[in-house]
């Protein structure tokens, strides 16, 4: 009964002291608002990171060798270096043991690593082709001559490119620059080419060593990949889908690029920037006039226009020049200036020029530095310190549905586990012998269709290339036959693996199953240990943890502040209301009653304003859940697991926030209430001043 009266008095006190109530209330409301919004935000980010990590690489649990030197971190260390997690000997026996646990749905063997591939620059590419042509069984003189003309033209372009700029290029010392000048002049001379055929090997060597490096063009592709059972991987990561090309056929060695990576890192840089600008204009309604980001990309395209003109032969240059002049309505003679003018795009002409690029320019340039069907020469440093190279065919690209734009889910490309083992030096001697034999047998004879020649010869014959000519693909230099291109399923499952993804029926059991796996490993001597996806994700996992920690510290501080304010105001209230409290005590109210009076007052305050704050936060979360928060820049895209973050309101969060509010109320009440309880009924007798 007295509760009702206490509440009444408390509520009226809250309204009576409006100023105090407002100050404390605003702080409380802000704290609750921040808690709801912030947690939804961080949960959105970490949820996105979680699903894009667990559903693209880690699964729910990762297992790896018990005696690993480093902790497993599938994304590598913070500094980008790979981790040494050792290996587990037999996948088959581990899988068999684990599958006895009814919680475990499947186990996918893996090994993650980094690779660096240098597809070479355009001159390297032409030289490699020429080298092959010389080695070919039936040497085609015309073909070789046309290739030579193409190379000579490119050398001239390089010379033109560097003219008067040798000193500016910081990479070259003065002596090197002088030497480079001499070398370029030498290649420009008729004599250099006269005795080319008789001295082909040396000439090609000279061009490759002395001239090719003068294309200052960093072509290195650096990527992470996961070696696995591709068929199992596809099945167990249900979001997996092929975008370009085809799936690696069962039992075949092969490689799949992640489409995100392929489109972002492998594609011709100018084309990629044009794609990005177009996307940003459409998705984010950015304009070239207003967006610094887009302006910078246009600027970069102009600066790197060499990526186009160095790839065009003389006839192509002429054709493109004609069309460009027509498009721009100019009569510019200098192709490079013309190209730069073309690449300086604005909002008015962007779409037209974008279409022009794909229609008229893209067919003559290497649009992707690695193409579907190419063979990648991958190399890795084995544990023994030796470099092993594996040639592996690129079958296509893939992505994970609904994580198309997540850089996190796009981190890994896929290859077969057998090739990974080889890269890692886990080859059996038998296998190695076998490879040597095959290598010796085959030699290097596969050149394929010479598309450059097609382009080139048509240009020497006539000045006009048929406008509707089919885009010609340009083969890269590493078109070699793959060694030991197949493997048996047994070979795959019986062999070693570095780590494996474990999928559970119910992801809320992760902690329990980890414990069970670790116990099983001890009792059955499996030699493995299990970690959660967060642990396996290394710094990514820690990042979500840290974001939550930082947010909680922030919220904690604001709530602590609110708590202190409440405490202070209650203390003042206790002092100001000594007579009132004394009167209540004199009339017969127990100390407990006074305590409750204070407690209800804060409770009322915190629930009311905490509720208002939480409701406002929830409202904003719901709105942002509909509209989405656009990611500005690459970092945000990474954290948002895509270009937009959609918040999701978790109702239990509101309850949690309200519970925290009550706890704050309880804590903040203690001291002032204790002080108030100590107020003597004698205070009632004091004359009012």
């Amino acid at each position, binding site marked *: 009964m007295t509760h009702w009266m206490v509440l*009444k*008095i408390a509520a*009226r006190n809250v309204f009576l002291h409006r100023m105090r109530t407002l100050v404390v209330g605003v702080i409380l409301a802000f704290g609750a608002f921040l808690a709801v919004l912030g947690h939804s935000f961080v949960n959105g980010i970490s949820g996105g990171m979680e699903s894009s990590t667990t559903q693209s690489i880690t699964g729910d649990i990762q297992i790896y060798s018990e005696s690993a030197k480093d902790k497993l971190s599938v994304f590598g260390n913070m500094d980008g270096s790979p981790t040494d997690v050792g290996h587990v000997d037999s996948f088959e026996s581990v899988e068999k043991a684990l599958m006895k646990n009814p919680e475990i749905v499947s186990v996918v063997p893996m090994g993650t690593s980094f690779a660096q591939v240098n597809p070479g620059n355009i001159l390297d590419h032409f030289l490699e082709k020429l080298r092959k042509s010389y080695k070919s069984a039936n040497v085609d003189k015309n073909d070789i001559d046309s290739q030579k003309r193409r190379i000579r033209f490119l050398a001239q372009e390089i010379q033109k490119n560097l003219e008067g700029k040798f000193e500016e290029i910081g990479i070259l010392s003065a002596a090197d620059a002088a030497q480079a000048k001499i070398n370029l002049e030498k290649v420009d001379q008729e004599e250099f080419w006269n005795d080319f055929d008789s001295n082909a090997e040396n000439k090609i060597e000279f061009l490759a060593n002395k001239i090719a490096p003068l294309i200052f063009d960093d072509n290195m592709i650096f990527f992470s990949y996961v070696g696995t059972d591709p068929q199992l991987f596809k099945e167990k990561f249900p979001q997996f889908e092929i975008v370009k090309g085809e799936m690696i056929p069962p039992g075949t060695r092969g490689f799949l690029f992640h489409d995100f990576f392929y489109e972002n890192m492998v594609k011709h840089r100018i084309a990629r920037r044009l794609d990005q600008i177009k996307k940003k204009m459409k998705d984010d309604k950015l304009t070239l006039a207003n967006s610094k980001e887009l302006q910078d990309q246009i600027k970069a395209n102009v600066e790197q226009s060499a990526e186009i003109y160095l790839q065009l032969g003389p006839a192509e240059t002429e054709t493109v020049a004609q069309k460009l002049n027509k498009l721009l309505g100019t009569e510019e003679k200098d192709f490079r200036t013309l190209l730069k003018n073309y690449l300086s795009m604005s909002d008015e002409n962007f779409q037209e020029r974008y279409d022009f690029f794909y229609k008229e320019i893209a067919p003559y340039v290497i649009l992707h530095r690695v193409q579907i069907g190419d063979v990648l020469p991958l190399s890795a440093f084995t544990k023994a310190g030796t470099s092993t190279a594996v040639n592996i065919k690129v079958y296509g690209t893939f992505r994970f549905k609904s994580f198309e734009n997540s850089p996190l889910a796009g981190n890994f490309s896929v290859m077969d586990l057998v090739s990974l083992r080889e890269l890692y030096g886990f080859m059996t001697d038998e296998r190695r012998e076998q490879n040597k034999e095959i290598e010796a047998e085959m030699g290097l004879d596969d050149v394929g269709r010479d598309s450059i020649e097609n382009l080139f010869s048509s240009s020497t014959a006539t000045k006009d290339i048929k406008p509707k000519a089919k885009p010609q693909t340009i083969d890269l230099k590493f078109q070699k036959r793959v060694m030991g291109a197949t493997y048996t399923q047994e070979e795959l499952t019986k062999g070693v693996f570095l780590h494996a993804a474990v999928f559970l029926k119910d992801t809320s059991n992760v902690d329990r199953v980890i414990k069970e796996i670790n116990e099983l490993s001890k009792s059955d001597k499996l030699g493995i240990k299990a970690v959660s996806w967060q642990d396996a994700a290394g710094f990514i996992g820690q990042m979500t943890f840290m974001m939550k920690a930082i947010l909680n510290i922030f919220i904690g501080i604001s709530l602590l502040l609110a708590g202190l304010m409440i405490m202070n105001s209650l203390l003042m209230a206790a002092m100001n209301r000594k007579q009132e409290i004394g009167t209540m005590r004199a*009339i017969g109210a127990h*100390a407990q009653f006074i305590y409750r009076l204070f407690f209800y007052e804060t409770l009322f305050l915190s629930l009311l304003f905490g509720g208002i704050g939480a409701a406002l936060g929830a409202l904003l979360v719901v709105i942002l859940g509909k509209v989405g928060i656009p990611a500005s820049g690459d970092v945000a895209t990474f954290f948002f697991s895509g270009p937009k973050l959609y918040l999701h309101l978790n109702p239990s969060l509101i309850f949690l926030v309200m519970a925290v509010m009550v706890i704050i109320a309880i804590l903040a009440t203690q001291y002032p209430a204790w002080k108030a309880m100590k107020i003597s009924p004698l205070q*009632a007798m004091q004359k009012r001043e």
Partner: protein
Amino acid sequence: MQPIHLENVQKNYFLDKVQVSALKGINLKIDAGEFTVIAGPSGSGKTTILNLIGCVDTASSGKVVVGGKETGSLTEKQLTDLRLHTIGFIFQSFNLIPVLNVIDNVEFPLLLQNKQSPKERRDQVMRFIDRVGLTQYAQHRPSELSGGQRQRVAIARALVTKPQIVLADEPTANLDSVTGQNIIDLMKEINATEKTTFLFSTHDHSIMNQARRIIRLLDGRIQE
């Protein structure tokens, strides 16, 4: 058995280590239903005596028996209960709870007692409000009432629990003489009808002369 019984009660205060003897051996018995005034100049110890009887303070020595209970042997909680059930207070400065209206203020001690059904309680509250003539102000807040009206609310609050003893320390000091007289008349009337023991202090001669029994205090001693 008298509701109030004091035996050789002394009360000393310490002011900066200097001892002040406020009461110097008080012996006093008050019978049930008496209408008694404690008279004396300012500083003579009136408030001190009332505080001891009202169980809001403790004697330095001697025996204080209120409602048959020796207060010196009671715990803080028991003293509170004694105040709640046996004593009604009327304060010099009315001491109403500012955020509560007249009804709630009068109801307050009944709620603390928690002995009645809400209906019974409400009826009793309204009866006492009617008794002090404030029915039409029942929904008003103290700040909307005059001094005399406030003291009437305080009287209703002190009486609503039907206490054995009503203590009032200079209940008219903050009122003009006409209003003060009205309050005293009301107290006399209630004393006559309800047989409640009234003990109040004053230094106003016109008021003290209306009491049936006057206890004269001077410098901490009874002059009777």
